[in-house]
């Protein structure tokens, strides 16, 4: 009985996933076609301007751009289901190839940023909650609000100006020096983009942790815990954190795409050869196939993370759990 229900539960989530991905694919396809720009320019470069109408028609036919948009979508979808997303117009390579060459850089930047943000955020949040309304909390809250309001592209430029152009301590762009590529070299190139990613996102999550804990601190069970003689510190760590942790886990899951989106912007400013710069270029050059695959990948990541957050929440919080899941039997009065 319980086994069947678990099956049903995950089956529903799976169905949700497929429906979401299908809707995503349609939106990605049609929006990218609706956006202005000339896809032939990506493929043929400046030669496009010298093409005769006949040559253009031939080129469009060759790339399959002359057919009705619905047919194009069906064909793309058919290929996509087999894992064939076509070739990049700009690089004249299978889009997977193009992405494969860049994905490591983005994972390095985004992954490190993510880990940093998610270890620092609870520390900062707990510290602020502990010091609630005292000088330290107020200072950190104000500094945090300011830091999270600074646009990432601007902060990137300022940091480049100060640390790369001014002090010449750090490189201004790229993922490694030409001819270099050792671990130290890569790390040095990572510092500035990483700083921007962390500064741009950290407070958002730290503040959520802080407020979540303060919400718990005001709960009734805290009064009972204190009235039985537990010190404040123990109540915070044993009781409040335990109640706040599930929502933090699900927050982590939904934040993956958020942090990733931040790295895209940062990558562009720092000319960091990752998926962010690649998406930017592909949108600019109307490199449809590449753009669509990148959008699909980011979109799928968002969907997976949201469903994961949902599952985490429902598994941990007994109040959200559906009736089919096992629940301790209600013990009633004699």
């Amino acid at each position, binding site marked *: 009985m319980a086994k069947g229900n678990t099956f049903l539960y995950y089956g529903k989530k799976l169905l949700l996933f497929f429906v979401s991905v299908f809707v995503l694919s349609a939106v990605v396809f049609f929006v990218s076609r609706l956006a202005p720009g000339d896809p032939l320019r990506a493929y043929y470069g400046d030669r496009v301007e010298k093409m005769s109408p006949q040559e253009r028609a031939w080129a469009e036919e060759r790339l399959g751009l002359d057919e009705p948009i619905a047919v194009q979508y069906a064909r793309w979808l058919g290929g996509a289901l087999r894992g064939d997303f076509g070739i990049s117009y700009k690089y004249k390579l299978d889009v997977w190839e193009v992405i494969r060459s860049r994905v490591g850089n983005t994972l390095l930047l985004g992954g490190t940023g993510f880990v940093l943000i998610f270890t620092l955020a609870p520390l900062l949040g707990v510290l602020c909650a502990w010091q*609630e309304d005292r000088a330290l909390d107020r200072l950190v809250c104000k500094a945090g609000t300011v830091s999270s309001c600074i646009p990432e592209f601007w902060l990137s430029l300022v940091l480049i100006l100060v640390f790369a152009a001014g002090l010449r301590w750090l490189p201004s762009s790229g993922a490694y020096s030409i001819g270099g590529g050792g671990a130290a070299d890569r790390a040095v190139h990572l510092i500035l983009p990483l700083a921007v990613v962390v500064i741009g996102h950290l407070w958002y999550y730290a503040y959520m942790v802080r407020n979540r804990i303060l919400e718990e601190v005001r709960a009734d069970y805290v009064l009972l815990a204190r009235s039985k*003689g537990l010190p404040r510190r123990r109540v915070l760590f044993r009781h409040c954190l335990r109640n706040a942790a599930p929502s933090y886990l699900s927050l982590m899951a939904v934040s993956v795409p958020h942090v990733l989106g931040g790295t895209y912007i940062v990558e562009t400013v720092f000319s960091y050869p990752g998926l962010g710069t690649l998406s930017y270029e592909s949108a600019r050059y109307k490199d449809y196939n590449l753009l669509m695959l990148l959008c699909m990948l980011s979109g799928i990541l968002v969907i997976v993370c949201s469903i994961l957050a949902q599952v985490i929440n429902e598994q941990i919080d007994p109040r959200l759990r559906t009736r089919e899941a096992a629940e301790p039997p209600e*013990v*009633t009065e004699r």
Partner: protein
Amino acid sequence: MPELLEVNHLSVSFFTGGGEVQAVRDVSFSLGAGEVLAVVGESGCGKSVLCRSIMGLLPRTARIKSGSILAAGRDITACGERELCRLRGSLFSMVFQDPMTSLNPVMSVGAQIAEAVRARQPGLSRSALRGRVAELMELVGIDRPEERMDLCPAGFSGGMRQRSVMAIALAGNPRILFADEPTTALDVTIQAQILDLLREIQGKLGTAAVFVTHDLGVVARVADRVAVMYAGRIVETGTAEEIFYDPRHPYTWGLLQALPALNRGRDSLRAIPGMPPTLIDPPRGDAFACRNAFALAIDYEQAPPMFRVTDTHYAATWLLDERAPRITPPVGGGLDG
């Protein structure tokens, strides 16, 4: 004999954006060992704040402005947080209004009781701890404790939860138990069980208790003495008999008249007209004057002092002044009647 708890001229205020809220104003009372005092009054008249200020559990925005609290001979108002922490659970502890929210939902009931035990007896072994938890659960009438202590509060009914909260409160053998409307959130049938249990345990362990309630039925069931609070002040205090049979303050009359049992045969329940005043800027004179059918002119000018009725019975109403007109109280029948 020195009293177990002595509160002298206590004033507690909340400092909010809207101004200073005077939640407790110049309250004095005492509690002897093993005695049960009921604090009665409408919502928002400072009953809970009074208890929380004694426990040192006031929210950040509130402060004890003046007065002293002597518990077992020491002045609590002078204690630091560390000392208060040691006193909580051992000298006094508290049962709260809503057992649905006062237990931590993600921690097993047994663990929450064990925490309270360990706070007082840190060196206890695992099995001794489990034994003590089971003993406490049995004390509050939860049978088969061994199999139930590992359940989370979600698996307990409201009455069972309140029993668990009581087990927690009693874990450190406190000398004073505060019960802040312990039955308000429960079913009527469970209410009676919990009250009887509290009274029984209180008698068995000799714990003194302060019952906060707005239910005079509860008072009649458990209290030795009663303090009636209105707008942050104690307006009448006396033994339970005195308050029920010989009430002197018009507010107490109003409360007693509002009892459903005294409204039998009427179409609607009698109520005290109006609302308690806001305590941001309490009115001059008697705060109850504008709701009081028996108000005298002086009530609007000057707050009445505590008039002595008997050695145990005091009331703050100008009606007890020698110059006041004689009024036959609408309720009570005198101690002899």
